[in-house]
Structure formats: C-alpha cells, structure tokens
C-alpha cells in the first residue's frame, strides 16, 4: 500500500471510530490526532489477524448502510442523522457477524478514548502514566 493510500485509509478509520464514539456535551469523543497516532501504533504492534479484523470491520461499517436501512450510500457519506441510525442499527443487527464487527470497532475506539487524558479528566480520572514498555533483561 502506498503512503498516500495508507494515509487516506487511516483518515477513514479515524472517521469511522469517531462515528462509533462521538462526543457528547459531557465527555469528548475520539480525538482525531490521537486516534491517528494510535492507529499507526496499532498497525506496527498488533498481530496480523487483529489488523485484518479492524480493517474488515471498517469496511463492513462503510458499506453496510443498506442493511441497516440507513440509505444506499457509504456510511461516511450519510447525513449525521442517518449515520447515527446506521451506528445504532449495526450494533443491534440480527446478523451476528455484523454485531461482531461493531464490537471490534467499539473495542478499538475504547482503547483510544479511554486512554485520552482529556476524556479521563472530564470523568474525574487521573491520566495514565506512560507505558514503560520495559522488562527484566538479566
């Protein structure tokens, strides 16, 4: 995948995760910049099957609006109201694998969102310390 295609794909991933976990007046949603950095780390560090699962879930999200009655266009081209209907419909769809795809997106969105200092602050939680990423070597 070329760098520009990869960049575009990452932007799409970020927008999908933001749709899954949007901001409310009480807590922030997904921070796009943090999310993009996180996805770069995710790509580098997680096993291939988990990357595949995320990418497939994003594709499912993008192209399944006809199955949720939200419209015929790809999810990110829907109006905000229809996009919301699509999110809700996918999360409670009768097809198990569609629900599983949403679960995958919610899980990844949660990893970004729950570690965001702004989110934690809004909920009265201390920010996470940096992961030391070290081990006993001898």
């Amino acid at each position, binding site marked *: 995948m070329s760098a520009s295609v990869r960049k575009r794909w990452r932007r799409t991933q970020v927008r999908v995760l933001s749709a899954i*976990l949007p*901001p409310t007046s009480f807590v922030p949603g997904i921070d796009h910049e943090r999310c993009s950095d996180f996805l770069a780390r995710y790509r580098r560090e997680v096993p291939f099957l988990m990357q595949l699962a995320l990418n497939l879930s994003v594709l499912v999200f993008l192209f399944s609006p006809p199955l949720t009655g939200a419209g015929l266009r790809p999810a990110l081209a829907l109006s905000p109201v229809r996009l919301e209907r699509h999110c809700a419909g996918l*999360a409670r769809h009768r097809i198990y694998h569609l629900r599983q795809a949403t679960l995958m997106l919610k899980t990844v969105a949660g990893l970004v*969102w729950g570690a965001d200092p702004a989110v*934690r602050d809004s909920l009265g939680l201390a920010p996470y310390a940096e*992961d030391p*990423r*070290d081990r*006993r070597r001898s």
Partner: protein
Amino acid sequence: MTRGEHLSFRTGADFELELDYVVVGSGPGGSAAASLLSRAGRTVALCEAGAWRDTPHMPASVFGALRDLFSDFGQLMARGRSMIPIVQASCVGGTGVINSAICVRTPESVLEGWGTDHGLGDFLTPAAVERAQTEIEAELDVAAMGDGQLGRHDRLLLEALAMTDREAHPTSRNARDCRGSGACLQGCPTGAKRSANLTWVPEVLTAGGCVLSCAPVARVVFEGERAVGVRGRFQNPDRTYRGPRGAAFRVRARRGVLVAGSATGSAPLLARSGVRLPALGKGFRAHPGSGVIGIYPERVDPLIGTTQGASSIHHSDDLGIKLESLTLPLDLLPGRLSGAGATLARSLAESSHMAMWVAAVNAEAQGSVRCARLPTFRGGPYGKNIVSYQPTKKDVARLRAGCATLARLHFEAGATRVLPGIHGVPVELDRDRVHLIEEAPLDNRAWTWILSHLFGTCALGDDPARSVVGPDLHVHGRRALHVVDASCLPTTLGVNPQHTIQAVARLTAERLANCEAA
C-alpha cells in the same frame, strides 16, 4: 551460564543446560511447583514464553497490557456458535499477573467428586489440600479485603446481598496491602498483588535455579518413554523487533519435566511433542461469565477500590453461579456497553455513576483445544492453538438467571437503571422491566461472554480413556512427564481457580521430591 541466572531474549549461538527439573510455564501452577522443588534442594529451570516484568515495568493503559502482558494480544477466542474471548497472560507469573488476586479454598464437594469419579482420593485428600492452601496463604499475603480497600461498587453489592438475606463476603486476595487502584488487569502498579513474578519465581533464582523468559518451549524431548528435557527458541516480545532471530535453547532435565502452560497451552505442547492419548486436549471447561451494569444517582467511581472486592456464593448450588463485583478499565467499557454512536456516548458519559457486577457460571459445557495447522504471524504460543467451546442452553439459562438476579440487586442497592448488554433486550431497563432479562434468548450469540477461569485438557484421573495424567502423577504411558496447571483439573470448581491450581501443583511437586528422597 551460571546457576541462579535469568536468561532473557538473546540471539547468537544455541545453548544447552542441564538441571534436575524443567518447568514449562510460570503461572500459578508452574511457579508453585518450581518453588517447592527448589526448596526441596532440586535445581529447576523455569521456561516462560513471555517476558519478565517487575512492578515498575507494568503498563498503565489497556493497550499496553494487551501488548506487554497478554497472551498474543488477547486475540484468542473460543470458537463455537459464538466467538468468546479467552483472557490469558503470557509473562513471568502467567495469568496471575493480570488476575484479580482472589483466593478461594477448594470446595470439599469438589475434592470428594475427584476422589470418587477420578480416583484422586489418595492424592488430593481434604487435609493435604488444606495444609497446602494454608501455607500458600501465609506466603502470598492472602487477606480478606478491609473496608478501606473496597470500592463503592463493592460495598453496594455487599449491601444489596445483605438486604436480600444472601450470603456476601469481601474477597480474600493475595494482596493484603492492596491500595485499591483497580488496575489488576494491567498488572499491579503498586506491587501489592503477590503474583509469582514477585514471589515464587525470584525464589527459584535465589535457590540456584534458572529462569528463561521470552522462551517458548516448542517441544518436550523424550528418550524412549522418558521425558528428558525441552527445546525451543527465544522470541523477542517486541513485535516491532526486526533483528536476528532468537537463539535456540535446549534444557536437559535429569529428573523430570513439569508442564504448566495453562488449560489452552499444555495440551497442544504435549501433542506437538508426540504424546497421543484419547483425552489429550479434550474436556476443556470454564466458568464463562457476563455482567450487568447498574446506574446510580450518585457517583460510584468504579475505578476506585480493589478490582473485585465483593463476592457471593449464595447461588452456587441452586443456580450454579458465583456473583462478584468487577472494575472494568475505562478503555474496555465501550466494548462492554450496548449500542454505538450517540447511544454509546450517552452511556459512557455516565461511567462514574456505574457499578458492574458479574455472574460466573459453573458451566457444564465441554470443549477442546488443539494445535492449529496454519502458523500465526509472529504469534505467541496460544496464537497457534484453537479452542472449540460453546456454552450449552443450560449454561445460558444459568447466566440469564444470574443476570436477572444481579439486575434486581442493583435496584435494591439504589440503581435507577441497569444496562444488561444482551442482544434482543433494550439497552437500558428500569425496575419494572427486569423480567425482560428472564425472557432473553437462550442463544449464546445474544450474550457478551468472557472466559477467564479455564480447566481441563490434560486431566488427572485413573482412567486413561478419560484422563492424561495418572494418579501416579506421570502422563499415561510416559515417565518423568507431569502436568501442574489448570489443565490437570478434571472438572470446574465453581470458585476462583488459582488457589486450587497452586495447591495441586505444590502437592505434585512435594510428591515428586518425596518419592526421590525415599
């Protein structure tokens, strides 16, 4: 190399060492056996697939924990009609590093059943197990959690249970000095949790043994029927590492090999090593669980307090479930809540008013574990294993009854709404609609399960058709090959397993040491 050395990932020349025993896997089972053998004066090599992380190395975020502590990034799933995540660690100390530290003694009824149905009455007598567990409790600082350590979500559960005349108790945990950071899943940032990476594994080193970390064992090596060692290759735990591959190692065991790679890891290792027994990899069992979240008018602050401070065995006999409180890190909460988009965000905004309580089912379902034929991409030992398992209708019915009970308890404790997280049931329920949980589908795809208490696949027993390890503690048909982890437990327990695993491992090691002495 010298005795008392820790060998971590290395490249370069292959090497070989020889000691009395090799133990594969350093979770509660492997570490309990290794420390006992060391105390008996035997030299022990402890081979662990994961890295050794001390308290300052513990990750803070869940992503860090998945990467640094979990087995293969937590991607192992039980496959059946539904996909159920299996949570296990791969690090020195095993799953004991990420668990909630609850220690429960083995119920006598379980030992009785193992005596009559599996021929283990002479080995696992109630007196022997009690003695072992008393010693372990003293060594690992096991204590009931005090009021100051409990979180509000724990206290609410205890109050609701008391109000409804149900049995209730603060949990006993190997974390006497727990500071209630609620971060057990990320290892313990304070060192209060006395998992084996901080206790029994260093003891093996001090006694002159060797610890090999980042050292997945590929095969047990045999001479004839006798296990004489293991071999493998160091693996760098950093997935971004692109340097030369790890050195191959071979550890010769003069006296025996003890396998403790967990309920999903031991059977595939034995199978890869050429052990062929009808019961190998079969009889995989679990306590699958799920939770109900209550929303309270006042703040609950669920991330403050011990990870799991309250528990009840009130429904162990009639419903086959155990009830517990649980702290779920914020990073994992979206995956647990129903809905997506604005519905999900609205629920999350109330997270500081939530208490999560879980029901763990003493399930009757049985599954299996086997090696995958396809290699995984830089996967750990579990990534190459396939678990097939599916809760039965009866198990789902038990969970359903458990979740309905939890929902009612939430309302007793003052919750205004509950979030059951069941497909086909509304996202939120008020008190008048709890009956909808009782009417929820019995299809296990409707439920959000998780598997963390695992059993079997190398069961102990006297019948070679149904077991893998005989009452003489050798794998059937082999010499000097033993299994000392959750995989050797022939049934579920109905209570948290680590204490039983430790006791069985320790009694096995004691028997081995005594037999040789005799």
